[in-house]
Structures are given as structure tokens and as C-alpha cells.
């Protein structure tokens, strides 16, 4: 078992791209080796040691590596990108694209996550204890599929386009989701425990549960009456019929 603790040394204004902060990249490496891993601050190549105090305890493979970011990193992007195993704990806020394309392991964000948390993730688990911004569990521009697998939980609120282009996996939002969650969905399950607006736009298939209120409903869903799922009674809608979709939208009664 290896624990790597990264303590932020400064609060950069320019977002740092640090896609190498992953258990895969850190596994088995020493303090010096991890400190020498490169990142980008704007157009300048820097090292992790430039922005973090690095402490390593023990040694392990990716699955046996835990990374603790001991503080706020609202200007560090791409943490945990494409990680396959292991664990990352961020004890504060984190910048965009956290956990993008991850296929395994887990990420816990104790603060808020900026946009595109879990972008195109295929496996593993992300827990955001605060809020997430736009496109949580979304896709990349032009790509047919966003999230394909794994689990994304947000304990706070999210902004627009939650789970856009989702092709699989599970998303749970304990707070509110703003505009168009599950837009252009193909598959997967989204649960919103709070309120939301225009859920399931152009949903082809897939499932959305809204346990709070739908503040504004799309005109193109068919009301299928009520249905009980796991002991909760929902009004069931199917659509989105704008595209002859076969998705299911459950709204708590």
C-alpha cells in the first residue's frame, strides 16, 4: 500500500493541467520521482513539485496507491484522468475534467467539482460531496457517447447538461440539477433527488428518476400513469417522442 500526499503550495490563477495525477502514474514512485512528473501551467511546462509538497508513504501498484490532495485545488484540471485503479481523495474543491475517461478505482472530492467531472468515464466511482458544475458525467464535443460506465454521485447540486450523451453507468445527484439533465441520452440511469428543469431532452433510451419537482416539463413525453419503483410512487413518462425515443422518466408524485 502506497499513500501519496500532495499539499498545495500556492493558489495559481492559471489552471494547471495535471493529467498525470493518477495512481497509475504514481504507483511505485518515490517522492522525488513524483515531484518530477510534469504538468502544464498555461504554456509552461512545470513539475508537480512546483505546486505541491509531495510526501510518499509505502509503495504499491496502481490498485494499492492512494493519492490524498490535502487542500483546495480549484485550478488543477484533469486529476485522475484515465485512471484504472487506486484511490484519489481531494480534500477541497477541484477544477475541470476531474476523473475524465477513468475506468476504475475511486475519486472522492470533498468540496466542489468544476465542469466535466467524470467526462466519458467508463468505470470506477466518483463521489463529489459538494456541488458539480456543467456537464457532470458528460461527453466530449462531437462524440456520440458521454459516460459509458461506473458511478458518479454528487451530494450537492449540479448545473446544466448532467449526463449528456450518457451511454451507460449510473449518476446520482442528491441536490438539484439545473437545465436539461440526461439530454441526448442513449442509456444508463440518472437519479435526481432534488428539483430539475426540462429533464430528458432528446433522450433515446435510458432512465431518469426525479424525486423532487420537475419545474418545467418537455411537451414531448407521454404520460403513462403511475408506477411504483423500490417503494416510491412515480408518475411515469416515456420519450423523448421528439425523436421517437424509448427512454423512461419517472417523476415523484
Amino acid at each position: 500500500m502506497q499513500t501519496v500526499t500532495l499539499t498545495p503550495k500556492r493558489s495559481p490563477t492559471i489552471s494547471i493541467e495535471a493529467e498525470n495525477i493518477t495512481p497509475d502514474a504514481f504507483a511505485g514512485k518515490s517522492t522525488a520521482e513524483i515531484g518530477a512528473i510534469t504538468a502544464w501551467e498555461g504554456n509552461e511546462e512545470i513539475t508537480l513539485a512546483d505546486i505541491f509538497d509531495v510526501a510518499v508513504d509505502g509503495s504499491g501498484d496502481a490498485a494499492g496507491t492512494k493519492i490524498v490532495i490535502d487542500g483546495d485545488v480549484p485550478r488543477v484540471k484533469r486529476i485522475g484522468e484515465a485512471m484504472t485503479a487506486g484511490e484519489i481523495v481531494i480534500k477541497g474543491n477541484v477544477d475541470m475534467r476531474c476523473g475524465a475517461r477513468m475506468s476504475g478505482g475511486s475519486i472522492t472530492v470533498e468540496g466542489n467539482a468544476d465542469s466535466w467531472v467524470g467526462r466519458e468515464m467508463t468505470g470506477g466511482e466518483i463521489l463529489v460531496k459538494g456541488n458539480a458544475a456543467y456537464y457532470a458525467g458528460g461527453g466530449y464535443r462531437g462524440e456520440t457517447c458521454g459516460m459509458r460506465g461506473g458511478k458518479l454521485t454528487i451530494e450537492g447540486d449540479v448545473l446544466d447538461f448532467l449526463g449528456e450523451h450518457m451511454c451507460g453507468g449510473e449518476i446520482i445527484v442528491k441536490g438539484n440539477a439545473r437545465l436539461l439533465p440526461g439530454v441526448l441520452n442513449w442509456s444508463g440511469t440518472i437519479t435526481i433527488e432534488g428539483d430539475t428543469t426540462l429533464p430528458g431532452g432528446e433522450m433515446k433510451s435510458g432512465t431518469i428518476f426525479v424525486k423532487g419537482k420537475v419545474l418545467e416539463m418537455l411537451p414531448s413525453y407521454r404520460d403513462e400513469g403511475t408506477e411504483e419503483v423500490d417503494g416510491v410512487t412515480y408518475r411515469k413518462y416515456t420519450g423523448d417522442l421528439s425523436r421517437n425515443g424509448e427512454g423512461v422518466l419517472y417523476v415523484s408524485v
Partner: protein
Amino acid sequence: MPVIKDVVCTLCGCLCDDLEATVEDNKITKVGKACKLGRAKTMGPFLHERIEKPMIRENGELKECSYDEAITKAAEILVAAKRPMSYGWCSTSCEAIEKAILLAEETGSLIDSTANVCHGPSALAAQEKGAPSCSLGTAKNYADLIIFWGCNPVHAHPRHQTRYSTMAKGAFTPNGKKDKKMVVVDPRNTDTAKKADLLLQLKPGTDYVLIEALRAIVNGHEDVLPDEIAGLPKAKVLELAEMCKAAKFGIIYFGMGITQTRGRYKSGDNVSSLISDLNQITKFVMIGMRGHYNVTGFGQVASWETGFPMAIDFSRGYPYYNPGETGTNDVLMRREVDAFITGAADPGAHFPQESVKHLFKIPAIQIDGYANPTTEFSDVVIPAAIAGVECDGTAYRMDCQPIRMKKLVETTFKTDEEILTEIIAKVRELKGNGAKGGA
């Protein structure tokens, strides 16, 4: 008196190419066939105050200097920056745009066009769904149903209706307006709507909802629709759907009422799908009503040079693109940008207050023919020739049709292309070609 015919108008995306400019004593004294906007633009250089000399800000005041000094200062600012941003380049030639992209590449900059505050979401929509479109001449010849959605051509594209759309006479519409129906979808009863056969005054921000309803009707699910949609009675929505189905060739011209409202590009993206659905029944296409005359050109040039139409980040040496992350206002709002260069655009006038506040804080370079709000925060101001009047070059019309702009008069101002070329040379000199950004 020499009259130059078939002059290309360089104001809006209509890019009318039939103007007649009278040139006397190296000045344009009369412009025939132009609308109010085109006349103001083409005669502007001879009517309004120009930025006469390059300037550098010292102790808060802009002081005149030579082109060389201003270009050197500009290069120094860009080379020193970690997160430089280049913005604008839509009221200039494609040849200048190529240089702006090269400069961004060499300085590891972000580069974005005015589409960031205009039709950027239309590009995002094309990435989602494609762009089922046609040339403006095809629309003129064929279209018997014209829908202006969230746009107001009477004000923004004054000759559009006579040259290309409602009033234009074409091969299969020989009687002009008599052969065509016109619909306006807008929360306001605009001047364009005055002549419409149908006006749908929807609730602001509900474009997506209305498109959803139309698609549901076209796809045979009219029965599920509620009585009120987007603030409109269902009957009115059905009426529009019936008009669409009955048309032989329909076209939706869409504007910033689609791109700047709630949901942003998701509305344009869904219009594209509506068009695809309608083609199961009849022929339908769409065209974005582009504002700046060559904003389409920026998208074209940037796409072939970098793969992306706008919001391009060269910081790591290869282009990365993600509006929302790499768009001008995204990074300005986050206060990431530490140097700014703009040309042929006026972010001072057209950006939200939060972005402008940041522009006052960082070194900024302006390349333009006229003083404007951007001049107020710029630290280096470089006067430029007006493309299409004082220099030639390529521009792309809103339907992606390339047209060559003419040079009408001689000038002593350097062109955007020349200025950028000189800044690039200076940047290379300063860096010893040890490029930033992965190179």
C-alpha cells in the same frame, strides 16, 4: 468619375458583392446599392476619426509611437505571457486570420473568434448533429417557406430579404414574395415580423421547448402535446408544423435568439434534427445568420489549420478545443488570461462587464482602424487598414461561400496581415524560435 463595380460589402454575413463605389481623389464618395450598414462601413474610413498612429500606454495615457515600436512591444507582451489570448479576427481577411492563428501557435496562446459571443453555439450544434444547409442562391431559387427564428434581418442583415430570401425572385419563385410564405419566431414583435404571414411570439428562453413540440408533431406524436407550449397555444404550433409540411422547400434562418438564450447550442442542435425529420416529408435546410462578415471565414480557416472552428488552446503545442473551458469569456471570467491581443473586433463593447474588468488588468494589444471601447483598456494600439476597402483578401459568406474582397483605395496603414506577420517575426526573434507550448 471612376466607379468600381461588384464591390464586396464587408459589414454583415450577407457579404453582398454588387456594390458600386465611386472613388474620387483616393476617397470613396458614394456607395451604390448598399444598405445603411454597408454604406456606413464602406464610407466609414473617410467619414470617421481613425486611429492615425500606433500608440503605447505610458502612465495611463496612450502615446504615439512608430509601427516598429508598437509591434515590438506587442511581441514582448505576448512572449512574456503564460496564458495569452488572441481574440476577434472576424472583420478581416482569411489571409490575416491564418497569420493570427500562426501567431497564437508560436506564442502558445488561446485563440478565439467573435463567434464566442455570436454563433459559437451554432458550431457546437453542427458538432452534435451536423449542419443541413444550402447556398443562399439555392434558397433564393427554391424556398417557398422562410422561417426567421431568433433573428431580425431588417436590422441586422438589411438586404437579406431582397437578395436571398423573402423578396428575392428565383428560378422557382419568379414572383418573389407572392410565391413565398414567411414566418417569424421571436419573443419580440420585431420589424422583420411586420411582413410575416405568421408570428410566433414565444416566451423568452423556450426555443428548445418549441422545437421539441414541432419534432413531436413531425414524428407523429401530436397527441401528447399540452395545450400551451413555450407560452403559445397548441393550435399555433400546429399551424407552423402544417406550414412546414406543406412547403416544397423550407428554410430556417436562425440568429442569436437561438444561440444566446437558455440552453445555448442545444436549441440550434435540435433545429438541425427538426430539419432532418422534416426531410422525411419535404425538403428543408437551415442557415445561421452570421453577424461579422467573415466570422464564417474564421471558422473555415481555423478548422483546416487546427481542426477546430474557434476556442482553440495552443498552450501545449497542439490545438485543444472545448468551449466552456477554452472560449474567450470562459478564461477571462476565470481571470486566467495574462495577456490579450485583439484585432478586427471590439471585445470592450461586446463582452460582459466581468470579462472587461479583467481586460483592464492585463496587458492588451489592439489592432483596429478605429478607436472604440477596446482602446480604453489597450496598452498597445496599432492602426490597421480596413479590409475590403483598403486591402483585398478572402471572406466567407454566412453560407460558407468564399468571395474575394476588393481593394478600393490606396492606404498608408499596414494591413492586419502585415502587422501580424511583423509581430510573428518579432516573436521569433525574441524567442530565438524556441517556441513555447510543447515546442
